[in-house]
């Protein structure tokens, strides 16, 4: 307890003005570390140390002659010329460009519909649409994978019932869209909830003022609601960007159902995984992972900058 509280007499002599009006500056002391310390200690062990180790690994290479040797940036230049790496990066970029906007738009529309108060059975909608978030990616992928299946899946059912032949969702051409559908299904509710929570705290006085001015529902959305939840949109955008670049679970699990459609370098994460756990190329795998980390951070940062610029 280094922050012994001052005796009341001393406190009384403190300058009074502006005491209530603004947040008093908190006294700087080390006692905050009592509380953040445990988090940071574990954080250092499971985040900082592995990242540092990764960077270290990326400068070495296990060579046939001479064993593990320092190679400088050779792993990085190899990665940047690696067609498999580029193809995986291109794939998740495409995924990001299509899936994220679709998902966020649907989530936003549902959140606006809920917030408008014009739905019958609102709370049923809210909880039901959120439920898929509680489903593990493994179960979601298995479930959708079975439904996609032409053997005992829904697609197979529809084909035999209607005598048509729908394209196979697990085929190489459609697999990315099929994965996009799974991810969208999993996260619409989560994003909807973030937007909805932000919408709920808009001051009611704003609506009243707009009502007096005779603003339409549409104007209400574009002029008040969307600007008010911009922060939530940016946060959801950043999380979605990060999620897309880290795409792993869904393709990894679908791999056993669609081995011909999902290669070992389908996404960068899958590629890094295969490199280290099937190929034992730990150094190169770490390099790929670091490059992806840097790209992710840059894009997440860009999303944030863009989101914040609209503020002015």
């Amino acid at each position: 307890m280094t922050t012994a509280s001052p005796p009341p007499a001393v406190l009384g002599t403190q300058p009074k003005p502006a005491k209530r009006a603004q947040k008093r500056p908190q006294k700087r002391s080390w006692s905050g570390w009592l509380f953040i310390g445990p988090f940071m200690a574990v954080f250092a062990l499971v985040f900082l140390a592995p990242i540092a180790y990764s960077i270290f690994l990326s400068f070495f290479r296990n060579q046939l002659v001479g064993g593990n040797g320092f190679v400088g940036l050779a792993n990085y230049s190899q990665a940047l010329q690696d067609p498999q790496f580029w193809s995986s990066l291109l794939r998740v970029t495409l995924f990001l460009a299509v899936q994220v906007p679709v998902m966020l738009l649907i989530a936003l529309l549902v959140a606006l519909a809920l917030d408008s108060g014009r739905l019958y059975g609102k709370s049923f909608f809210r909880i039901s649409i959120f439920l898929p978030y509680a489903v593990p990616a493994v179960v979601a992928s298995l479930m959708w994978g079975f439904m996609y299946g032409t053997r005992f899946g829904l697609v197979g059912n529809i084909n035999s019932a209607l005598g048509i032949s729908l394209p196979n969702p697990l085929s190489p051409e459609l697999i990315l869209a099929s994965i996009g559908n799974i991810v969208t299904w999993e996260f619409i509710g989560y994003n909807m909830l973030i937007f909805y929570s932000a919408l709920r705290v808009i001051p009611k006085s704003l609506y009243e003022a707009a009502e007096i001015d005779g603003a339409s529902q549409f104007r209400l959305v574009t002029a008040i609601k969307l600007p008010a939840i911009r922060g939530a949109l940016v946060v959801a955008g950043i999380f979605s960007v990060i999620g897309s670049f880290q795409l792993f679970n869904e393709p990894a699990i679908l791999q056993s159902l669609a081995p011909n459609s999902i290669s070992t370098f389908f996404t960068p994460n899958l590629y890094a995984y295969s490199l280290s756990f099937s190929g034992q190329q730990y150094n190169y795998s770490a390099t790929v992972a670091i490059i992806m980390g840097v790209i992710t951070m840059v894009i997440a940062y860009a999303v944030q900058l863009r989101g914040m610029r609209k503020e002015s």
Partner: protein
Amino acid sequence: MSVAVEPTRTDKHRTRQRTKPGYVRMKSTRRGVDNPKRSVLLTVLTGIVLIYSLIPLVWLFINASKTQADLFTSFGLWFSGDFALFGNIGDTLAYDDGIFGRWFLNTVLYVVLGAGGATFLAVLGGYALAKFSFPGKKAVFAVVIGAVAVPGTALAVPTFLMFSEMGLTNTPWSVIIPSLISPFGLYLMWTFASEAIPTELLESARMDGAGEFRTFFQICLPLLGPGIVTVLLFTMVATWNNYFLPLIMLKDPAWYPLTLGLNAWNAQASTAGGEAIFNLVITGSLLTILPLIAAFLLLQRYWQSGLSAGAVKE
């Protein structure tokens, strides 16, 4: 990436009103705008998303009630043949000497220690970020937020190598320790604590000579209730659903969590000589998601108010 900015005065005032007295539900009090005409069209349109969200779950339930043979011959979205759900559950629990039960207990162990520990650390840390000014606070925030963007594999491979040096791989610790950190939980707790705990209250407690830990556990912790439940639910989901981490850390099926076990059962069909047990995969999936769905339904009240407080800070 300081997405969150200090709340404005009005924000703060409003949340405090809403979150403090018994955590009143987010019942809106807007009049006029508040009770608009219900719209059938809008309900139907939103209903499409609702159906999309629920259909796979309905499919899962229906197909968990079918025998392996019926699975292949019947229409996916309706019941067929005998209602074999209970038989399937029995088979799932009995298969391979009841390994499913073992996986379930493993998952519970990882969730209790991993998510429980993660919540505890996030609550302490979030409180520190919200209510203390300490040297290195900005650095803490920057580092934590920056680290979120690092892909799982960037961490997974070196963590695996580190843990195998320490002899931790293929033990429960290799799954529990990395689960202890939830940057999102820290962020939620930080936003929640800065609004739920009035600074004046802390100051008067300190003035009375209460130690920092006593102040925290006796005065602040009760105020953080909904925030804690929210963080706990989200860390529970994260650990319950964890797949990647156990996948690389664990070799021995006896330590598998449910997610890894289900995937192993599914993959079994595609390996040569493996017995296809799709009905067990489907029933096992249903059993896997039930506890989480139940938790979310039962604790709705808490996590929804906890989350909305987090959203105030923009």
